[in-house]
């Protein structure tokens, strides 16, 4: 769930938009370069974008008694690196802001920052760390997608707490309050996103192995388990 239209003070809305803009511009360049250097990876890019579209349209019930949706950005961040997912995530957010009154134009910068920048980077870092620690690709992708998803909503909570510090507890108090709304709700959904990302990766691994090897996701030789 994104920050609603008009629910960030003007200065915060402008600030987050300025912070997100260079990432979006860089992302467009990164995708263009990717397509030029590895035209074979178009199918994987399509699947990653499609995954992001599907997952962020699914509002799932959570143990907290409310609903939220996953982000779907972790898979693409593992395959193509975090910059590629910034533009794709931004397109999803723009679609939802314009057609669904979900999120908003004034809060687009902040929402891009949480879902299309923070989430993918955390996912990418989690994947790298897990692989280096000896985890199998499946476990690493699960962790990447789940933690990237969770990081998105932690970021949203921090953004809202910065804008609306609690009168009693200050910034920290507000972070805790917003985290109980967003991050806690997100825990089971993050697990679901992790599992679904492994599922799609299994499907890709069955028939897109050469492209995945070219991207360096799977080692060139031997079977990755």
């Amino acid at each position: 769930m994104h920050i609603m239209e008009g629910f960030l003070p003007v200065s915060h809305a402008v600030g987050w938009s300025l912070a997100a803009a260079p990432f979006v511009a860089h992302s467009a360049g990164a995708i263009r370069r990717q397509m030029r250097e590895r035209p074979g990876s178009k199918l994987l890019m399509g699947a990653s974008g499609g995954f992001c579209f599907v997952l962020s349209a699914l509002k799932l019930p959570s143990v907290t008694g409310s609903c939220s949706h996953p982000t779907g950005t972790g898979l693409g961040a593992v395959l193509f690196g975090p910059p590629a997912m910034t533009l794709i995530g931004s397109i999803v957010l723009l679609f939802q802001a314009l057609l669904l009154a979900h999120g908003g134009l004034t809060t687009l910068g902040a929402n891009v920052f949480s879902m299309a920048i923070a989430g993918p980077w955390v996912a990418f870092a989690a994947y790298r760390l897990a692989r280096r620690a000896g985890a199998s690709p499946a476990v690493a992708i699960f962790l990447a997608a789940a933690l990237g998803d969770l990081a998105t909503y932690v970021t949203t909570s921090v953004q809202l707490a910065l804008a609306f510090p609690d009168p009693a507890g200050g910034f920290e108090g507000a972070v805790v309050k917003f985290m109980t709304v967003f991050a806690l709700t997100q825990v089971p959904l993050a697990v679901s996103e992790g599992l679904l990302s492994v599922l799609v990766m299994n499907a890709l691994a069955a028939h897109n192995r050469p492209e995945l090897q070219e991207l360096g996701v799977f080692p060139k030789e031997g079977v990755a388990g």
Partner: protein
Amino acid sequence: MRWRNLLLVLLVAAFTIAPLLLPSSGRGERFRGADEQAEALITQIRPDYIPWFRPVWEPPSDEVESLLFAVQAALGAGLIGYCLGFARGRSRAQEEARRRVSG
């Protein structure tokens, strides 16, 4: 691998269904959006805050909104299906060609 994938699907289904089976905590309507809760929280922290911008367009009803969410999901699922199907067909054709050459 097939069993592992089935297990993944079942786990996701379990994670999605389980919250619906939990007993209601009895406060207000259940399974509303988390963003609505955040909205309530903002009004509680800053009762004087008035959103300074309205959505440029809002779906006229919940039905139209769910239609558009379904369109979003369908577009995404269609794209994944096309990409996976294309790759599967391609690798099948390559196998076939290899078999014909060696046989």
